[in-house]
C-alpha cells in the first residue's frame, strides 16, 4: 500500500463542482496552502468550505473565494487582519456564511467522522445562534441540538506521514486536522516530510492511516505561510 500521490494536481483531479470541503488550519498553522492553490487551479466551483477562518491575503482560501469558486463558508471566525477576499464576497452577497461556535464546529466534524447522528451541547443556548434549533433541558441545563458535518473531501496539512497514511502533526498545526481526516469521503493530507513505514512510533501516531486516502509532499517552493 502506498497512499502517496506524486502531485497535488493528481490528488485533487476528481474534486467536483458542488463539493463540501473541510480545510484544516487555524490562521496559517496547519493550513494546506499547497492543496488550496492547486484546487484554485483545478477550477472546481460552487464549493462549500468548512474551515475555522476565511483566508487571508490573496493565496489559499482567499484565492478560492476571490475567484468565485466558493458559494458557502461554514466557519467560526472568518474575519480578521487582511481578510479582504472574504469581506468583499460577503458584502456583495456572493458568499453565504454560516457562523458556528468553534467547539461546535469541531464537534460536528468529529460526530460526522465517528458515526454520531448529532449531539446536544450547552454552547450557544439562549443566543441567536441557537434560533430555530431543537433544544432540550438536560440535568437542569439548556442544550442545543447540533448535526454532524460531513465533507466530500478533507484537505489537511500535517508534519509527516508514512505510505500507510499514518500522520503526525507539528505543535498547534494539529488543530482541526485529526477530526477532519475522519469526516470526509476522501481525505487528502499534505505533509512536509515523507516518513518510512516504521519510522513513526505507533504510540505517536495521531491520525491512523485508516482515515487517510491520499498523501502529497508539499512543494517546497509553495511551502510558506499564507
Amino acid at each position: 500500500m502506498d497512499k502517496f500521490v506524486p502531485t497535488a494536481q493528481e490528488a485533487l483531479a476528481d474534486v467536483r463542482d458542488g463539493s463540501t470541503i473541510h480545510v484544516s488550519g487555524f490562521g496559517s498553522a496547519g493550513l494546506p496552502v499547497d492543496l488550496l492553490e492547486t484546487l484554485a487551479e483545478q477550477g472546481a466551483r460552487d464549493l462549500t468550505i468548512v474551515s475555522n477562518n476565511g483566508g487571508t491575503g490573496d493565496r489559499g482560501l482567499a484565492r478560492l473565494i476571490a475567484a468565485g469558486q466558493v458559494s458557502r463558508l461554514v466557519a467560526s471566525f472568518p474575519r480578521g487582519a487582511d481578510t479582504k477576499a472574504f469581506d468583499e464576497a460577503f458584502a456583495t452577497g456572493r458568499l453565504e456564511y454560516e457562523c458556528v461556535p468553534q467547539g461546535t464546529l469541531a464537534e460536528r466534524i468529529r460526530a460526522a467522522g465517528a458515526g454520531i447522528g448529532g449531539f446536544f451541547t450547552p454552547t450557544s443556548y439562549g443566543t441567536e445562534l441557537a434560533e430555530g434549533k431543537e433544544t432540550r433541558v438536560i440535568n437542569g441545563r439548556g442544550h442545543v441540538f447540533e448535526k454532524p458535518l460531513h465533507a466530500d473531501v478533507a484537505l489537511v496539512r500535517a508534519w509527516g506521514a508514512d505510505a500507510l497514511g499514518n500522520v503526525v502533526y507539528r505543535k498547534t498545526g494539529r488543530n482541526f486536522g485529526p477530526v477532519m481526516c475522519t469526516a470526509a469521503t476522501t481525505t487528502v493530507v499534505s505533509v512536509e516530510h515523507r516518513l518510512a513505514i516504521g519510522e513513526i512510533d505507533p504510540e505517536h501516531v495521531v491520525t491512523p492511516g485508516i482515515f487517510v486516502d491520499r498523501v502529497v509532499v508539499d512543494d517546497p517552493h509553495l511551502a510558506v505561510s499564507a
Partner: protein
Amino acid sequence: MTPTALPGRPGIVQRVARDLGPGSYVNLGVGIPVDVLPLLRHRPDIFVHSENGVLGMRTLDPDEATDDNMVNAGKMPVGAHEGAAFFHHADSFAMMRGGHLDACVLGAYQASASGDLANWSLGRPDAANTVGGAMDLVVGAKQVWVTMEHLTHQGKPRILPECTLPLTGVGVVNRVYTDKATLHIVDGTVIVAELVGDTTFDELVDITPVPLIDRPVEREQGQALHPRQVG
C-alpha cells in the same frame, strides 16, 4: 486593600494576573486578556490553555524564533513551557465544555447584572459575525472573568440591567474587571469587591446603572483563585 498600582488596561491585566492562583488551568481570550500572558512568564505553575490546541502556553523569549505552527488564539507567535501538551480542536473544546478549565478570561462589549455576556456581535445585520470559541468557553469554564473598560468611548455604561447586544452566554459571568473596579456577580447580585485607583463607591454607583453591593469585608479577603488546594 492593597492599592492598585496601574490605571487603565495595564491595571486590569495586573489584577487578573494577581488573582490567578497556583495550579490553575486558565484560558486567556483575545484582546485585553491575552495581555496577561507576559505577566505569567515566570509562572509555569499556571497552565494557560489556548483553544487552538496547547496547554502550557507562554510568551516567547526575546531571542526566540517564531514558528508558523506555534500560535495562540489571536494567531500571534507563542512558546510553550516544559510540560506543555498539544491536542486537536475537539479535545481542546472538550476541556472547555467538560468543565476542566478553572477560569476563562474574556474581553466583552457588555455584561448584565445577572451575568449575561455580550462579546461577539454588534448586532449589525450587514456584518459577518465572528464568534470563535467564546460561546464554548463561557458554558464550560468553572469561572468566567470578563475584562473591559467600565464605559464605552462615548461614556456609556457597559454593565447594564440587561445587555442590548446579542448574547454570548446567559448568566455565565462570575467577575468583571474594569478600569474602575472589580465586580463579583453572585446569584444576580453585583458585589463591589475592589475599587481601582481613586474611584469611590459613590462614583461607581453614578456610572453603573445596576444595584451595587458594597462589601469591604470581601475586599479585605482578596480574590485569588485557588482551584487545586489539597487537604
